[in-house]
């Protein structure tokens, strides 16, 4: 299936925003999205969410004959599957270029770095060894699948338990979980991939790109590293040339990120172990927060006002008794660029000049009052009145009087009387 083409407008905007050091979701250039690791009921089942990107991995094992060249080594087999569930442009079955890239990357990162001790997987040298298989499925693709897959793979390998085995002469007994506790794999270290997206020939870089940023980027660099600062894999793709110091800078950033992520994995494993030993409930169902309607759709996006800069506007929100929740901004006549508010819902920005439609006498009078906040003005505003129980608060800007029920109606009439007195 085809994927929606990225429009020129979005492309230009993202490039410009990256040059201004801004990201669409408000992150800083080196920030990861919200990372959540959860384990399932079955041993070796792990689900990782980075923002909206979601992957799930499952580890399983079976007894096989070892390879001829390495008779005393077990085998680790990694498989990443990209299905159309994750993204409409992924084809079912056939592995695309990107699929091959992820598979190869994870193989290098996990197998060739020897994060799992394969010699401990040997049962009878030359005859029987354990083959451990990690299957990673991409459930949703919103950018940065590589990081998510690597975290899921290593977390599930650390979570997995294989059946215990006793060898007596020629007989091998594989004990089921009910007889003997399953045994964990011996994980030497946890290699984790960190992705960097580059823009404008390597001038700007972002960590953890989202889907849109990935479509606009010039190229990507993936550093696989563990918390002992050992680089397990390094890969650069795309049409760009990087300088030496950029690569070094990225590896320094990766050290910090990998330490944080490894800490997170350990904490998640510890929580899961604690729950299991306590006899409490564990698994995916328990990680879902049940009280909220939007529990599986959206994590709460905090409104971050700190990164927004500017100078404070003068004279606003002079709280009168009834409109302290009013966000009505009064104008300052000097500044050309500021919004000139004529009336509630009616305003003009410097260039256009005064509003020439429906200019009533009342509005003229309001404008002439200038910047002085008056209680009469507040009567005209028809917004921001959290009146309990009032559903429709009448937000159309054409209305001159508000439909606020209850006690404020009385106040209104007194003020309109006052206003009439002023007029005359």
């Amino acid at each position, binding site marked *: 299936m085809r994927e*929606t*083409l990225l429009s*020129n*407008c979005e492309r230009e905007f993202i490039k410009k925003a990256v040059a*201004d050091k*801004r990201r669409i*979701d408000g992150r800083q250039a080196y920030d990861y999205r919200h990372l959540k690791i959860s384990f399932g009921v079955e041993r070796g089942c792990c689900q990782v969410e980075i923002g909206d990107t979601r992957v799930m991995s499952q580890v399983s094992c079976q007894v096989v004959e070892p390879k001829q060249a390495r008779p005393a080594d077990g085998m680790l087999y990694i498989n990443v599957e990209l299905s159309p569930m994750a993204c409409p442009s992924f084809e079912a079955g056939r592995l695309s270029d990107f699929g091959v890239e992820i598979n190869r990357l994870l193989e290098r990162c996990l197998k060739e770095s020897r994060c799992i001790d394969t010699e401990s997987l040997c049962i009878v040298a030359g005859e029987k060894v354990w083959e451990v298989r990690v299957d990673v499925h991409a459930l949703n693709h919103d950018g940065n699948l590589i990081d998510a897959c690597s975290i899921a793979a290593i977390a599930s390998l650390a979570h997995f338990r294989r059946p215990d085995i006793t060898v007596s002469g020629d007989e091998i007994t594989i004990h089921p979980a009910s007889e003997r506790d399953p045994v964990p794999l011996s994980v030497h270290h946890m290699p984790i991939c960190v992705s960097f997206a580059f823009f404008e020939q390597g001038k700007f870089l972002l960590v953890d790109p989202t889907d849109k940023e990935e479509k606009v980027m010039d190229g990507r660099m993936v550093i696989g590293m563990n918390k002992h600062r050992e680089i397990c894999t390094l890969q650069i793709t795309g049409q760009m040339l990087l300088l030496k110091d950029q690569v070094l800078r990225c590896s320094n950033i990766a050290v910090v990120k990998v330490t944080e992520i490894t800490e997170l994995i350990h904490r998640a494993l510890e929580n899961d172990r604690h729950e299991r030993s306590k006899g409490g409930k564990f698994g995916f169902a328990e990680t879902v927060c049940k009280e909220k309607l939007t529990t599986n759709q959206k994590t709460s996006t905090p409104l971050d006002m700190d990164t927004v800069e500017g100078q404070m*506007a003068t004279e606003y929100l002079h709280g009168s008794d009834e409109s302290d*929740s009013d966000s009505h901004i009064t104008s300052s006549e000097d500044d050309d660029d500021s919004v000139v508010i004529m009336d509630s819902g009616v305003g003009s920005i410097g260039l256009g000049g005064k509003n020439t439609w429906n200019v009533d006498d009342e509005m003229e009078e309001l404008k002439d009052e200038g910047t002085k906040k008056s209680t009469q003005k507040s009567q005209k505003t028809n917004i*921001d009145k959290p009146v309990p129980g009032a559903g429709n608060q009448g937000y159309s800007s054409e209305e001159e009087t508000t439909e606020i029920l209850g006690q404020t109606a009385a106040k209104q009439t007194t003020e309109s009387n006052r206003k009439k007195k002023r007029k005359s």
Partner: protein
Amino acid sequence: MEIEEFIFQNKIIGKYFFFLLSVLGLHYFHLNDFYLQYVPVRGESVIGIVTNKGGDVFRVDIGGSEMGSLSYLSFEGATKRNRPDVKVGDIVYCKMLMAMKDMEPELVCIDSTGRSAGMGVIGRDGGFLHCCSLNLIRKILSSDCPLLKLLGKTLPFEITVGMNGRIWVRARTSTQTITVINAISTAEYMDNTQISAMCKKLSEAFIEVD
């Protein structure tokens, strides 16, 4: 009088329910739910992305199951000699001329009098296109949602809302554009009081940057 037959759990009850509503005078109603994919409806204004030019027709992606077709001549002032300046990847704001379930949808960028009425290529000079769910679109366009008006009091911005779940926003700077887009998407599950509170917080924190 049109009674749209929605696929209800029990179709017969659905028909009677809608008949009842139409007897009460309500002739158009929506069952509001969380929808992401757009189903083309005649007469709705949508934002499309031009993916292809061929023959006399642009192929426009409107987020539905089929691509829409937009003829070269459906622009204001376009003739066979005077072709509109539309490139692949441009965003167009257009109206659905024809949307039937058996045929591919047709779009136009002029109204019945031949004027563009704001339609046509948008986003030439900046702005950002954001995709969201259809119920959010209906919510912000409804008359009792204060979001756009309140946001507009603090941040002057230009906005085009397509009924297919796409919003194009342009404010003075990219920061402001991002702020507006995030404010709109976080307002999806907020009620009016929360929206007002959020806009008030924004107005306190944020003022125009030159």
